[in-house]
C-alpha cells in the first residue's frame, strides 16, 4: 500500500515537472480567455429577460429558453425584430460581392501572373498599398462622389444595396487579386504553354486548365470576400438608413442601442451571425489558414 502510494506520487512528480505546470496553466488560461466570451454569447442567448437583468449574473441559463430567438423571428412576439429580413439583406450583399470579386479577380490576377505587359509590378504594388488604406478615409469622398453621380443619373445612393455591393468590391478586390495572383504563380506555366502550342486560345487555357487547378484558391478567395461583406459595418451604417434594408451588423447595433436594453436578444442575433462564419472556417480550415496570414481578414 505504502510503496504503491509512493510510486504513484513519484509518477505524478515525474509527470508534473515545473515546465509542464507552467505550460498547462498558460494553455488553460488561453483556452478560458478565448472561449469564455463565446460561451457567454451563446448561453446568454438562452436566458430569460429576468435572468439578464437580475441582481446577479446567471452563469448557466435555468432552461433552454427561446425567448430571444422568438423575439427575432416570431411575428407574434411583442417586440418582433424581423431578423430574417436582415439575414436576407446580408446574404443579398455578401453573395454578389463574393461572386463578382472572384470573377473579376480571376481575370485580373491571371493577366498579372501570366501575361506580360508594362507597368505590371507597379500595378500589383499599387493594389497592395490600396489594401492598407483606411476605409474611413474613403467613405467621405465616396459618399460625396456617389451622391453627385446618383443625382446626375437619377438613383439614390442611400438605401441602395447595389451601391453597397460596389463599395464592398472596392474593399475586397485588392486582397482577392493579391491572393489569386500568388496562387496562379505557383501553377507551372509549362502545362499552359503545351496547350497553347496545341492550338488552344488563352481563354480555353484559362477555362480548361488553369481554373480547374485553382479551385481551392477560388474557394478561399470566395469565402474571404464573403466574410468581409458579411461583417462590414461602417459603409453599411453610412449608406443604409431604412431599417428594412439593414444588414445584420447594423441591426444588432440597433437592438443594442435600444433604450430598453435586451442583451439576450443581441446575443441571440450575434450567435446567428457568428455561427455560419465559424463553421465555414472550421470546415475549410486547411485552405483558409494560409489566407489569414496573407491578410484575408483585413484588420
Amino acid at each position, binding site marked *: 500500500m505504502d510503496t504503491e502510494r509512493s510510486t504513484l506520487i513519484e509518477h505524478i512528480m515525474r509527470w508534473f515537472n515545473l515546465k509542464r505546470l507552467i505550460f498547462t496553466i498558460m*494553455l488553460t488560461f488561453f483556452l478560458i480567455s478565448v472561449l469564455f466570451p463565446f460561451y457567454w454569447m451563446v448561453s446568454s442567448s438562452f436566458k430569460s429577460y429576468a435572468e439578464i437583468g437580475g441582481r*446577479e449574473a446567471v452563469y448557466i441559463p435555468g432552461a433552454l429558453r427561446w425567448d430571444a430567438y422568438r423575439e427575432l423571428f416570431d411575428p407574434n412576439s411583442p417586440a418582433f425584430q424581423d431578423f430574417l429580413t436582415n439575414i436576407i439583406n446580408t446574404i443579398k450583399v455578401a453573395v454578389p460581392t463574393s461572386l463578382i470579386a472572384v470573377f473579376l479577380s480571376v481575370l485580373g490576377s491571371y493577366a498579372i501572373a501570366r*501575361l*506580360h505587359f508594362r507597368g505590371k509590378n507597379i500595378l500589383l504594388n499599387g493594389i497592395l498599398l490600396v489594401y492598407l488604406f483606411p476605409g474611413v478615409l474613403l467613405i*467621405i469622398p465616396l459618399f460625396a462622389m456617389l451622391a453627385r453621380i446618383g443625382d446626375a443619373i437619377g438613383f439614390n445612393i442611400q438605401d441602395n444595396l447595389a451601391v453597397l455591393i*460596389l463599395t464592398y468590391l472596392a474593399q475586397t478586390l485588392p486582397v482577392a487579386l493579391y491572393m489569386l495572383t500568388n496562387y496562379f504563380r505557383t501553377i507551372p506555366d509549362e502545362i499552359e504553354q503545351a496547350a497553347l502550342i496545341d492550338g488552344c486560345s488563352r481563354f480555353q487555357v484559362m477555362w480548361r486548365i488553369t481554373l480547374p487547378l485553382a479551385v481551392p484558391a477560388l474557394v478561399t478567395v470566395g469565402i474571404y470576400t464573403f466574410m468581409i461583406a458579411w461583417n462590414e459595418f461602417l459603409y453599411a451604417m453610412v449608406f443604409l438608413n431604412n431599417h428594412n434594408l439593414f444588414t445584420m*451588423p447594423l441591426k444588432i*447595433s440597433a437592438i443594442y442601442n435600444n433604450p430598453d436594453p435586451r442583451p439576450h436578444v443581441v446575443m441571440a442575433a450575434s450567435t446567428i451571425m*457568428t455561427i455560419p*462564419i465559424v463553421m465555414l472556417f472550421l470546415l475549410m480550415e486547411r485552405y483558409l489558414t494560409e489566407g489569414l496570414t496573407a491578410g484575408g481578414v483585413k484588420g
Partner: protein
Amino acid sequence: MRTNSKSNLKKQTRGSLARKEAQLAGILITPTILIVFGLVLFPAFFSIWVSFHDVSLGNLNDVFHAPFVGFDNYVRVFNDFAFKFQGVDSWGAAVTSIVYSFASTILTMIIGLIASLLLNQKFRLRGLTRSVFLAPYVAPIVSVAFVWRWILDPRPSGVLNDILMRLGLIDLPKAYLATRGLAILLVIIFQAWRYFPFAMLMILARLQAIDGTLYEAAEVDGANTWQKFLYITIPELRYVLGAIFLLRLIWTFNKFDDIFLLTNGGYGTNVLPVLTYQFSFKLFNFGAGAAAAMILLIVLAIFMALYIGIVMKKIEE
C-alpha cells in the same frame, strides 16, 4: 538571305504575339482597374480636395463647386477639443490614436508570441487548440464587440461585475467602458484578445521553419531554455516580428469598428478614424472630416513608408 527573312518573320510573329498578349491583359484587368481606381484611388485624391473646401450636407449635391477655404478645415480640426492634447486627463484623438495603436500592437504581439510558443509544443489535440485560438480573429467584429460590452456591462448582472463583487474586490458595480483610463485599457486588451491569432499564425509558421540543429548545438553547449529562446528563437523571428508589428500598427491605426462599437469613442477612447466619422456623419462637416482623415493619412504614410522600406525589401531579399 533566306535565314534572315525567316528570323525576321519569327521576330514579327513574336512581336504581334506580345502585342496580342498585352491587349488581352488589358481587357482582363480593365474591370478591376476601373473599380479600384474609380472607387479607391480617385476618392483618395478627391478627399484631399474635399479637405480644402467647405463641404456640408447643404452643398453635397453640388460638391464640385464647394467654396475653397484653404487650411480652415485643418485649423478647425487642430483646435477641436476632441483632437487636441489637453493634459494627461484629456489626451485628444491624435495622442490617443498613437498610444492606442502602439500599445495594442505590442500587447497583441506578446500574446501572439506566447500562444505560438505554446502551440509549438507537442501535445494531444494541438490542431484543435490552434483552431479554437483562431476564433476571436475569425468571428464577426460586431458579435465579439457586443459580447465584450455585455461582459463588461455596468449592471450587477454584468459578469465581470458579478465576479469581482463575489471576490470582494469591488463593492459596487462599475461602468468599465464609461470610466476614463479604464476604457482605453480595456479597448487595448480587447485588441490583443481579438488580433493575437494573426500574430500567432505568422510566428508559428516561422517557428516551425527554424532549423532544429541550432537548438541541439545550443544544448550541447549547455544553454538553458531561456538562453535558447533569447539567442536562437528571437533572432530567427526578427523579420516576422517586424512585419507583424508594422502591419498591425497600420491596421490598428486605421481601425474604426472596434472603438466605435465598444465605446462610441467616448471616455478617453476617441481615435482619429472615429473623429473623422463624427465630423462627417454626425456634424455633417465633410471638409473637417476629410481634414481629419488627411492627418490620419499623413501619419499612416510614415508607417507605410517604413513597411515598404523595411519589410518588403527584406522579403525581396
